């Protein structure tokens, strides 16, 4: 698959990735600040390095914990 587009969404700087498959169709996936991007292409690594600051990562971790607590409490 070939990288086609990187979209940055949410306050937590999720990277929405669009790729072109071998058959010419679109393939989508999302990377969050706690995801490992070591196996990604350089453009994605650079974007993650630029946007996923310690502040963003911390905010994402906190949000995830709040969501889990909310789900467990109900």
């Amino acid at each position: 698959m070939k990288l086609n587009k990187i979209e940055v969404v949410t306050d937590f700087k999720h990277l929405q990735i669009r790729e072109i498959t071998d058959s010419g169709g679109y393939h989508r996936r999302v990377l969050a600040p706690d995801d490992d991007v070591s196996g990604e292409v350089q453009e994605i690594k650079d974007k993650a390095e630029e946007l996923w600051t310690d502040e963003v990562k911390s905010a994402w971790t906190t949000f995830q914990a709040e969501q889990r607590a909310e789900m467990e409490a109900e």
Partner: protein
Amino acid sequence: MSGIINSAGSKSGVIGTTELDYEEGTHTVVHAQTDGTSFAMNSGYQTLSYTKIGRVVHCTGYLVINTITGSPSHTKFTLPFTCASGNEHQGSQNAMTYGVDYGGDGVSIYVGPSQKYCQCISSRDDASYLHVSAAAGDEYAISITYYTND
């Protein structure tokens, strides 16, 4: 409505007088566990098809869990787009299941705000819902609609 949806590129186009972003594609599902566990999907049953019109995403597919690592307390599958933030964008829909052990009255697929995954929830009459634990061989027919960002 009538109009043109381009056949090339992103398939963005115009329907009537409204410019809409229209896109079709696939998403390869992997686990999105957050409890330190993981699972592997059956490679023949790990693809969701999606259609995105404007901010609305609709996904369908048949998913099968192949192997489990650890003792999962829940089941979370990745999605092609992040759900938009805000409680008004949360949503859930029922799923048909096969071989899934749940304690409630059925299984729903729930998408929470700002999340890139959906999770399997079992509702109960007049009681709190239950998280559905992942197990090898679990099968889900999924059809879900939710709002994403721009």
